[in-house]
């Protein structure tokens, strides 16, 4: 694992970007396969792509539960799965979004606004004794933000799970995103 791993040096997490046919039940097929084979999903994000016939599922998998090769091969056996890209963190752009509601007295409100600005987050909603903020960034960035907010007391929060795309080719690093389709079939 690379030093740029957004989950840290020792992480067993790996990102799969899975292009699927946009059909009823496809998410259930993918998640059921992971459950049935005993593979752990760390996070999962799914939404339609620019092409209405396809959706993209970004799955952060836990390689402690099974080898990546078996995961991608079993996944690829699903008829609705069109392509699997194994995204190397060194050659990908990754983002995650968090929304958090934090306890804030009138005096603390300013501190939280300042903290959010430092992280380049946004204030979404301000209440009498709480503030809801958001931040998009790398997972480790979000971890830091959450740790900082924790001292005020997080009432509730929701992370989206990671989404990722391959970095665009530079002259020197063409073919950065490996597609295991050739490998697996």
């Amino acid at each position: 694992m690379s030093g740029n791993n957004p989950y840290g040096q020792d992480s067993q997490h790996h990102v799969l970007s899975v292009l699927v046919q946009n059909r009823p039940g496809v998410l259930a097929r993918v998640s059921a396969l992971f459950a049935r084979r005993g593979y752990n999903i760390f996070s999962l994000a799914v939404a339609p792509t620019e092409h209405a016939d396809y959706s993209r599922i970004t799955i952060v998998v836990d390689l402690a539960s099974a080898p990546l090769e078996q995961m991608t091969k079993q996944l690829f056996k699903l008829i609705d799965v069109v392509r699997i890209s194994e995204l190397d963190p060194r050659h990908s752009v990754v983002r995650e979004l968090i929304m958090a509601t934090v306890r804030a007295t009138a005096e603390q409100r300013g501190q939280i606004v300042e903290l959010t600005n430092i992280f380049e987050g946004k204030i979404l909603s301000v209440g009498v004794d709480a503030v809801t903020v958001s931040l998009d960034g790398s997972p480790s960035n979000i971890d830091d933000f959450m740790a900082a907010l924790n001292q005020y007391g997080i009432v509730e929060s929701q992370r989206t799970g990671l989404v990722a795309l391959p970095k665009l080719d530079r002259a020197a690093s063409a073919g950065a995103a490996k597609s295991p389709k050739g490998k697996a079939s």
Partner: protein
Amino acid sequence: MKETLTGAQALIRALEHENVDVMFGLPGGCILPAYDPLIESKIRHILVRHEQGAGHMAEGYAHVTGRPGVAMVTSGPAATNLVTPLCDAYMDSVPMVGITGQVPTAAIGTDAFQECDTVGITRSITKHNELVMSAQDLPMVVRQAFHIATTGRPGPTLIDIPKDVLQNEMTWYWPSDDEVLDSLPGYRPNVKGHTKMIKEAARLILAARQPILYVGGGVLKARAAAALRELAELTQIPVVTTLMARGAFPDSHPLCLGMPGMHGTATAVTAMQKSDLLIALGSRFDDRVTGKVSAFAPDAKIIHVDIDPAEQGKVRRPDVPIVGDCRLVIEEMLKAIKELLQSGETQADVGPWRSRVSGWREQFPLAYDQSEPGAALKPQFCLEKLRDGAPEGTIVVSGVGQHQMWTSQYWNFEEPYTWVNSGGLGTMGFAVPAAIGAKVGRPDKTVWAVDGDGCFQMTAQELVTASLERIPVKIGILNNSYLGMVRQWQEMFYDERFSEVNLSGTLPDFVKWAESMGCVGIRVEDPQEAEAAIDKANSINDRPVVVDFRVAEDEKVFPMVPAGKSNDDILLHHSQDARREFLK
């Protein structure tokens, strides 16, 4: 000209377009509309007594014909009764299409009468399944289901059709091959092996001194038996055929070592252990073959040919993985080997290896103790008599347990597609319905099911179906009044503490039961009676026959590799224990 059909009419016409000549099923509420146009169809429908029977019949039919078996049942409990055969077909890569009725689209999700989440329940036990929400989609969904079931690694598919979809109108069409492929952009099974890998495999094969061809069910699915034989004979490499591959290579061939695995021959098991190269063809390193994986064939390099990429490296990392259809790959392998030989390469001498293997074969034939005069029949004896009395080309079907292992051991399989059994899932009750399906698929052949008394009681009611539909299968029950394999394990591994394993020495009366279902029933209690009973059964061809062989209750299957043990720890028949050293 545009033609308007109901969904039900479109379904039946689509099945006709797929060349379905027979289907197995049982009607009920939600599937009723599909049974109406069936009256006019040329498709033969076989009315079963339980939906599980329909599924296993479809499997038996597929096993012996290579064509997909079709089972059609209604929603809810009928769909759940189909679950076992679907899972069985999935484990053994049997091409099969299941069709289930579903509650009307508007009622889905309301816990309606006989509603269940059929696609949800069958998701992990089908290669693909589909809930059809519009009558217009039916021809395409049927084509996809047959295409997926029969290509790549074969397997079961399921089409779940709500009642109103069957009743609604649609405009008939029949999708082209290209349209089917375009609709499945994620499904392109790779059939042609990688040329470089095949060349590498050819080099390894020529260099090996102790090679073994480890042949699995994939060779039969790929119809590669002829290619396999050419490969074995060209290279003089001994062959083991797994439980799913019995018949892929003739048992009488001098290179054939029989079945490997938990109850395999000592020769097949040991030859794999000592091998320096395993050429795995359509086999999947199942735990029943490998025993303790870490101790399996420790010195062997592995060439693994399989059409399913996920099998490569799932259990054992291959040195040369080849993803492709076994027949095409073996044919390319033959070419590559011949080219190497022509270019002056020579094959390593496998002579010493073959003599060593022959020595094992002489020292360790299958063995059992003949029964004492007046004592109970031995099941192995019954099988020898059944085998010797069977007409050439007989198809033999079995259930699951001791009788299955003895059948695989004692039958002589000479041709492909003459052996039908439940390998992966180990489904008790498989034999009777699968035999019926096999006989429907191959009416020209004698079909014997060898069953256990436990298995028989799970699905015997389908003999009513067989009698009424004039499907003259023959059933030999090796009746030891026990769940025999369980008894064997309790005797060997649970200190003879027998728990819930005795069925009954008196009930049911299998002969009367057989007669009540329209079959001829024969009881055999004495070794002297066996041959005459078998001859009589073989002479009856107008109805099913059931022969109740009352066999010894304490007979055990040997050889045996205890679960979780290394194949080196194989337990032999007691008469061979003294020669154990020869296996070293």
